[in-house]
């Protein structure tokens, strides 16, 4: 397994590419538009793909991720569900077990907890439980994270609930291109995938994302910026602050490599280890609370496998071990560029 650079060679996959309409490569799109584009591509090319969730139909989703899909594919491909997350999760598992490829939406991160049971007890076990007789090709899309001045329960970074769960894949894109390629891969993967969408950067910037049906691999980290002095590892919306921190560090003569983990489970630790072997220093940045957040796993792997490479203690810059506060205070909760820069400088000063 090896690192994929920011614009990696794409795996050719997916079926029925001949059915593709010419890719509109001339209009840059946002991350959320890339999600819509990936959903539309796959729905057009695979009849077994259905989208379901609350308000995903005529309303096109509260974030507009499914905008236009019901109009285009009909209400037997894009289903509004009754208002119950247990229902969504359970129906999804049942449909997937019987040969469909459901792409379910949890309306917000904070509402997905009732889905844990069906994911942990069933989705990730159907294959192993039946020795391969049944399996569960489902995707659960979850708008994720804080920073949009939303009400309570709309701003959670809860990926750590899932990263210890065998049989699951946990994905989190941080650019329009990766959102497109990783979502296609997630839908095509024959096993369950949780696809977290960093809602704070849904519309942060646009880029050209050819609508070519090319999926990205589901097991690589992306090196977004090369550097020699220190490795900054992050995922989701924090990629923004981390890249900004790298800029600031560059101004001060510190060359920071920035890695977007992109797929948390399975973790492509090799890419991180290779980088740290060169830099000797590592700062892990994430939005979730620090204690037992997924950053712990990366730091643990470093302590196990890269100890002799480390020139300085590992640093974690994370949300505090509290709930993200309501929005008057939320930006003080989220890791800031300042905090990342300070940690990197501590690491540079150490050892």
């Amino acid at each position: 397994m090896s690192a994929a650079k920011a614009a990696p060679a794409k795996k050719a996959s997916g079926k029925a590419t001949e059915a593709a309409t010419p890719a509109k490569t001339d209009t840059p799109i946002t991350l959320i538009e890339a999600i819509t584009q990936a959903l539309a591509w796959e729905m057009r090319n695979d009849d077994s793909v259905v989208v379901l969730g609350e308000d995903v139909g005529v309303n096109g989703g509260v974030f507009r991720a499914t905008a236009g899909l019901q109009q285009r594919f009909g209400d037997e491909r894009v289903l509004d569900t009754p208002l119950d997350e247990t229902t969504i999760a359970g129906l999804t598992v049942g449909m997937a077990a019987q040969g469909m490829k459901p792409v379910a939406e949890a309306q917000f991160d904070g509402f997905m907890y009732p889905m844990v049971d069906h994911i942990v007890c069933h989705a990730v076990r159907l294959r192993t439980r039946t020795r391969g007789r049944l399996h569960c090709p489902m995707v659960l899309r979850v708008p994720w994270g804080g920073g949009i001045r939303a009400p309570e329960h709309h701003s959670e970074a809860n990926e750590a609930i899932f990263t210890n769960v065998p049989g699951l894949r946990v994905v989190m894109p941080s650019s329009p291109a990766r959102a497109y390629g990783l979502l296609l891969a997630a839908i095509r993967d024959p096993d369950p995938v949780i696809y977290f969408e960093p809602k704070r950067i849904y519309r942060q910037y646009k880029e050209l994302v050819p609508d070519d049906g090319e999926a990205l691999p589901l097991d690589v980290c992306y090196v977004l910026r090369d550097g020699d002095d220190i490795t900054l590892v992050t995922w989701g919306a924090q990629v923004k602050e981390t890249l900004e921190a790298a800029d600031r560090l560059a101004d001060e003569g510190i060359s920071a490599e920035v890695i977007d983990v992109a797929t948390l489970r399975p973790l492509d630790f090799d890419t991180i280890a290779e980088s740290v072997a060169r830099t000797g220093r590592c700062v892990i940045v994430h939005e979730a609370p620090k204690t037992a957040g997924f950053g712990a796993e990366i730091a643990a792997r470093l302590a196990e496998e890269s100890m002799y490479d480390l020139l300085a203690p590992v640093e974690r810059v994370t949300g505090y071990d509290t709930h993200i506060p309501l929005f008057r205070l939320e930006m003080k909760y989220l890791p800031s560029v300042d905090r990342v820069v300070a940690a990197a400088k501590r690491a540079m000063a150490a050892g």
Partner: protein
Amino acid sequence: MTVAATFEIEYLQYLGPDGKPSADLPAAFADPATLLPLFKEMLFVRTFDTKSIALQRTGKLGTYASCLGHEATHIGIGASMQPEDVFAPSYREYGAQFMRGVHPREVLMYWGGDERGNDFEVPRHDFSWSVPISTQCLHAAGAALAFKLRREPRLAVACCGDGGSSKTDFYAALNSAGAYTLPLVLCVINNGWAISVPRSAQTGAKTLAQKGIAGGLHCLQVDGNDLVAVMEGMRRATERARNGDGGTVIEFLTYRLHDHTTADDARRYRSEEEVKEAWKRDPIPRLRAFLAASKLWDEKKEKAWAEECGKRVDAEINAYLESKVQPVEAMFDYLYADPPADLLAQRAAAIALEKRT
């Protein structure tokens, strides 16, 4: 044919949309003057709602969930409770909460992104808003169970929407209310829509009231735009609960006249005609007409009261706008009664960072 069980769901309405009695009024309202203070509260809530939406539109409030059109249901529910009872709202039953003593400024604080909005000065024991749909129905059941075990003459009232009645927590609440014969009133406020999903897509059930049958509860459907029907329905439910006769599911038929929240645009999914029709069932003109016919209300009174409401709401808005943001340590300070050492270290670091920047 052997019949194992039969059931019947009653529907209550006393004032028709035109404000004329459609049935004999319950004894409690033999004197229409008893309705006057409640009507005034309905007007107050509408003023509050209108001004809150305006506040959000000018960027001074976060996402806000309007209660436009729900005033009779909300005020009627709140008015039917005793102070020592426990209320478990979802997120838009301001009218019910005001009747229980919650300050409008607290509502604004909450939607304004400040946890202090949940620190109700009164009532101290009510549950706060619950964004995760219908989960508070189960907390209300837990409260009712506590009352029953402690032999306290109190009851719990929870609200959810038509959408919320699909939630498993709602079903769990009615199931446990039946299993333990709890003093619980589950109010299903059917306003026709759950964001963009119409009532018809939530369930195959003819009424939402009948869901109570699944738990062996009492069931009732009322015209939620008719304050008299709301009060009478709540009277029956609360009396049963107080008499140890167990829980009730009441469905209130009303309509969400506004967008779901200020973040929503309802024109995407529902027709203008439907909304126009719904305005004809607006609970406020209905009760106004009835009170006017009873010579208890007129334009002059309305004008004076509207002014009073405006002033009171403005004072609340000002209190909210003038509130200082909490210090950074507030996010650490209410997590544990006895905070762990690591957390206190993070708190100190956050304060230090704050001073530096």
